[in-house]
């Protein structure tokens, strides 16, 4: 903190962490409420506090973004605690994303959790996971990246296994935990090797050391960077650590699946972007751009082909989320040093749009689970005649995920592929486009089942869960509104990305 910068109208620098603190305090507040009232007699209060906390974090992050906190317009990035944390445009962009997904999921969980035990714990775990994600976006040191990743992961394991009388949920939680533990170990090992080669955990120092003379330690640093990439591949559900995703998303309660596949994945990308772009220079060590090109192509192809063969909607969405991890990886795969900000920013914007449309799609699955209709495509047949509004919303999510023009998903994919072409990787964009065309096949299967197919048997939907419905409709609105509103989003994302490129 430099005294010269301390003007009367300026907040102390630690307040730049306000979005993280808002999430953490809300989580603790939920525990306090649960201590006073251990039997969850006021579920509305719990969901309300969680929503207000998430919205407060969203508001703070949005306010900081528009006020220019940590951005080039006001003295650049703010570093805190011996440079271990950094708050800049990218941090705030991702924090806004996590906070909005958290708010959506908390609102939707209110109906999903009705009558279940341990509601306060559910919301508290979700907010703690969101705290971890917000910290991941602010990590400027490999140690902070690891601790924040664990803070985001540990509550997620518990959330996946939340339905503890349900075999599928417990099995999913166990698999998620085991693969998570393995990849955390790989990640920690990678960090230790990078530290051994460079002598620092702070990303700028690591960058300088790697760009300089390593005196025979290039191999050690290279293996370390590979292993760090493995740790991020787990969090983003990319090949080769993607096995957990279909199992965990299918077994977990649907709102949790939405939370994990949107916010948690974006958190993995937030920290991966920061660590690779500001920590590992392209000139020295391993050519990690090549690594991510291979991973991106394999991930998006595998995810889309596997999704096309699924019979269950939730499992199809799980594989499609692996496919989307492949698209987002283009941000790193087409990174070209100084001019890499554009494609990186496009990837960030895609993650934001994806956050809304994918969460919305999983919330629609939650709605279907709430009504007790089955899990397969056939079970969704004829749903549109019973629940037209939700079905319109689901169709919006599906077409937007496929990247069709009138929805937010179109522009984000367009900018992403354009960024790849501009960077000279036209074949990456081509593979992406082919995969998108394939994805239209299985996304449209859902829409066809909803609108065109006749119901196999008569069924009644029962009561309409207001909060869940509202969350689905809001996510659909956001997906549609992100089309006209995409200009500011992509501008913010690209300037934030350009600011971190060293």
């Amino acid at each position, binding site marked *: 903190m430099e005294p010269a910068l301390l003007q009367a109208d300026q907040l102390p620098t630690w307040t730049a962490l306000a979005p993280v603190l808002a999430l953490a305090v809300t989580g*603790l507040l939920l*525990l*306090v409420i*649960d*201590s*006073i009232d*251990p039997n969850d007699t006021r579920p509305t209060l719990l969901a309300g506090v969680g929503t207000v906390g998430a919205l407060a974090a969203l508001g703070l992050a949005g306010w900081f973004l528009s006020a220019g906190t940590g951005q080039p317009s006001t003295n650049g990035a703010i570093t805190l605690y011996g440079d271990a944390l950094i708050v800049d445009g990218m941090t705030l962009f991702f924090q806004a994303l996590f906070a909005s997904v958290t708010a959506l999921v908390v609102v939707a969980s209110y109906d999903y959790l009705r009558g279940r035990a341990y509601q306060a714990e559910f919301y508290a775990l979700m907010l703690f996971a969101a705290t971890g994600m917000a910290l991941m976006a602010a990590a400027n040191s490999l140690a902070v990246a690891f601790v924040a990743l664990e803070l985001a992961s540990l509550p997620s394991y518990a959330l996946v296994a939340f339905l503890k009388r349900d075999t599928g949920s417990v099995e999913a939680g166990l698999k998620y935990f085991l693969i998570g533990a393995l990849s955390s170990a790989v990640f920690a090992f990678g960090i230790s090797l990078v530290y051994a080669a460079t002598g620092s955990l702070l990303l700028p120092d690591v960058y300088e050391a790697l760009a300089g003379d390593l005196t025979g330690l290039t191999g050690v640093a290279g293996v370390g960077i590979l292993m760090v990439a493995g740790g991020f591949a787990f969090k983003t559900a990319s090949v080769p650590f993607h096995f957990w995703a279909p199992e965990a998303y299918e077994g977990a309660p649907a709102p949790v699946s939405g939370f994990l596949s949107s916010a948690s994945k974006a958190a993995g990308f937030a920290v991966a972007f920061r660590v690779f772009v500001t920590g590992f220079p392209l000139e020295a060590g391993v050519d990690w751009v090549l690594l991510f090109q291979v991973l991106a192509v394999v991930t998006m192809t595998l995810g889309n082909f596997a999704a096309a063969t699924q019979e269950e909607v939730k499992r199809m969405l799980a594989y499609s989320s692996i496919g989307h991890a492949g698209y987002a990886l283009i941000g790193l795969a087409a990174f070209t040093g100084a001019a890499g900000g554009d494609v990186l920013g496009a990837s960030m914007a895609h993650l934001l749009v994806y956050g809304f449309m994918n969460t919305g799609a999983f919330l629609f699955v939650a709605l279907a689970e709430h009504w007790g209709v089955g899990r397969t495509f056939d079970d969704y047949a004829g749903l549109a005649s019973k629940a037209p509004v939700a079905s319109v919303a689901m169709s919006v999510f599906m077409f937007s995920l496929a990247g069709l023009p009138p929805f937010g998903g179109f522009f984000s994919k367009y900018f992403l592929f354009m960024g790849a072409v501009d960077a000279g990787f036209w074949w990456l964009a081509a593979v992406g486009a082919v995969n998108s065309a394939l994805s239209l096949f299985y996304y449209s299967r859902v829409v066809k089942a909803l609108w065109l197919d006749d119901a196999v048997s008569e069924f009644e939907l029962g009561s309409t869960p207001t909060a869940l419905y509202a969350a689905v409709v809001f996510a659909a609105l956001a997906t549609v509104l992100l089309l006209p509103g995409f200009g500011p989003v992509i501008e913010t994302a690209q300037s934030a990305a350009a600011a971190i490129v060293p």
Partner: protein
Amino acid sequence: MNAWIAIGALAVMGVGIPLGMMAVSALLRPGVPEQGKSATYESGEIPTGSATGIQFNIQYYMVALLFVVFDVETVLIFPWAVIYQPALASGVGLATVLLPMLIFIGVLVVGLVWAWRQGAVKWVSSPRAARQKTERS
């Protein structure tokens, strides 16, 4: 003379004397096999059950978890306590030194109170487990 030779001699004596005593007694003593001699020694009690199927009450797990939390807390408080006085003496403000630790402990206290209210430290007796125990003995 190398000082390690004395240590080596001591080690040889330390291992050799007990081995020698056992060897000598094995040669001299009469062999009288008896069932009571091969039974597990339980301080004079008659041994019950087998040693392989020991089951602990799952509730110890909660206690162990709570212990780990406070164990880790101690690890962080310890270096803080060491620098506390020197930091104050060198002119660092009380708020800078004390406040972070108070917040840290406050977070843990919230967690402890929560666990307490959820009944994590309450010992639940299981009627079925108690019945099995009496049936076994």
